């Protein structure tokens, strides 16, 4: 109970920290919207040539674009989450101070990142989606239950995304310059989440394989839930897929962290 109180304070702090930077939020919304338009016109061209590509009709494909733009910041597909600060603290040795606190490092950053994701969902998600819905014919559901199922899936997507970014961030303990790793993380995230093209578009065994990777849990699964491409038992299976990856990656993150913390002193401070 008291632990919940602590981490909810951290979560609220995470939310408010990002809420402080209003200009950055407006700039982000603008960028998401512009990218949304570019991708939407590209998808329109593609789907008019190849209708039902990836199992979606044109309205669904366009909706996929705007779901992607709305979730881009929330699941931090292109970075911009807690990991930048965490890596910085590792590099400078400030992380040692965090270890002097009676907290769990992973849960601490998770709470902080959930707060950030909450803010990004509202601040960076709603506006691009509204613009998209205004400018294009989108296939958005009217049943509240589908939206509720989508909300659960978004939360799970943030958990998986956090766990992946936590692992990448821990690399900073071994690498003095982690820019390369961050770039790799962004590339993998953008491609394998379905951000560029829905994963169902890819043919054959490659298409099947990419849908089993953790990045699929960050956008493809929640998008399919909202689009109605997953219904009933498939929704639950999608949640299970997300939860499974979250659990595995959390466990790996903890193990790597235990190894990494032993290195703290080597970085000095």
């Amino acid at each position, binding site marked *: 109970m008291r632990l919940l109180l602590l981490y909810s304070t951290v979560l609220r702090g995470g939310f408010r920290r990002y809420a402080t930077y209003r200009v950055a939020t407006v700039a982000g919304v603008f960028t998401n919207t512009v990218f949304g338009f570019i991708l939407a016109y590209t998808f329109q061209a593609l789907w008019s040539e190849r209708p039902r590509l990836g199992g979606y009709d044109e309205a669904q494909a366009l909706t996929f674009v705007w779901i992607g733009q709305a979730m881009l910041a929330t699941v931090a597909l292109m970075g911009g989450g807690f990991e930048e600060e965490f890596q910085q603290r590792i590099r400078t040795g400030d992380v040692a101070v965090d270890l*002097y606190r009676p907290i769990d490092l992973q849960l601490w950053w998770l709470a902080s990142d959930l707060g950030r994701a909450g803010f990004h969902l509202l601040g960076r998600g709603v506006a691009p989606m509204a613009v998209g819905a205004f400018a294009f014919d989108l296939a958005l559901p009217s049943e509240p239950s589908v939206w509720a199922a989508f909300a659960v899936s978004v939360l799970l997507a943030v958990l998986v995304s956090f766990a992946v970014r936590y692992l990448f961030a821990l690399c900073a303990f071994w690498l003095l310059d982690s820019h390369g790793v961050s770039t790799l993380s962004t590339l993998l995230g953008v491609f394998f989440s379905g951000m560029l093209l829905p994963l169902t578009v890819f043919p054959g065994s490659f298409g099947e394989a990419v849908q089993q990777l953790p990045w699929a849990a960050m956008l493809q699964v929640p998008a399919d839930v909202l689009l109605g491409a997953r219904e009933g038992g498939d929704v639950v299976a999608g949640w299970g897929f997300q939860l499974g990856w979250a659990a595995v990656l959390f466990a790996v993150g903890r193990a790597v962290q235990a190894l990494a913390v032993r290195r703290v002193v080597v970085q000095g401070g």
Partner: protein
Amino acid sequence: MGAAAEPFLEVEGLEKVFRIRRRAGRLRRERVEVRAVDGLSFTVPRGEMVGFIGPNGAGKSTTVKMLTGILAPSGGRLRVAGLDPSRERVELTRRIGVVFGQRTTLWWDLPLRDSYRLMRRMYRIPAARYRENLDRCTELLDLGPLLTVPVRQLSLGQRMRADIAAALLHDPEVLYLDEPTIGLDVVSKSAVRRFLADLNSERSTTVLLTTHDLGDIEQLCERVLVIDHGRLMYDGALAGLHEVGESERVLVVDLARELPPISGLDGARTLRTEGPRQWLAFPASASAAPLVGRVAAEYPLVDLSVQEPAIEDVIARMYAGRTG
């Protein structure tokens, strides 16, 4: 009270060895052992304020890391408040406070008050106690107007005071301070020192102070531990350290005009001259007053200042004296 004699920090034959792999050719790597802490022993009773000094890389921060439990010793025995730090780290974190001059634990983007509320949750501080401690720190460290300011807007001195308060809200039994006055102006420095002195005398908080600033030690610590190469070089009063190291202070005098080097003063020798300014060295243990009096009487004195010996110089001299 019998408990006073009971050691609060107990360090016995403490060792920390790092194995580092170093390049030894194009592909070959060799393992090198670095003994960062090499058989360190000392005890500190509850309520004592101890200066912990030594050159960079002497093993100070490695020792502090072992005392706080984030690093496990390679050998020796270690107890803080009866706990084994590396085994009981989380239990220990609730009873210690840590301030690193160069690092902050505060939330950068949010008002200072938010970080303190977080500390309250983190350490489960009862509401009444929290308010009392916060009020006290706010008053003594002059934080009142800062509580609503985002941390990123604080000056270095303000941030340092804010960090010290953050480390004390949960009434730690022992406080580890690493360079708490680094980069601070004279006013902030003296505010921080006064606060620490009060804390130690009123709450009998045990304090271990790591610093390069001799002024911190002089004004706060009765006892000094000097370590170098991971070993204890000296344990005793600061004055004794000067004697052991035969250190010197320097009197800088500005005369009315350029004169030949001042000579014939007992116990002082002229180090150098530059126009009307001259540098006179005299033993750190001696008072500057008689020397100043004689210079003023015999020379056209315009201005003067006294330079304290740097701690590194004292230690270097002491080290040279022992081995040489």
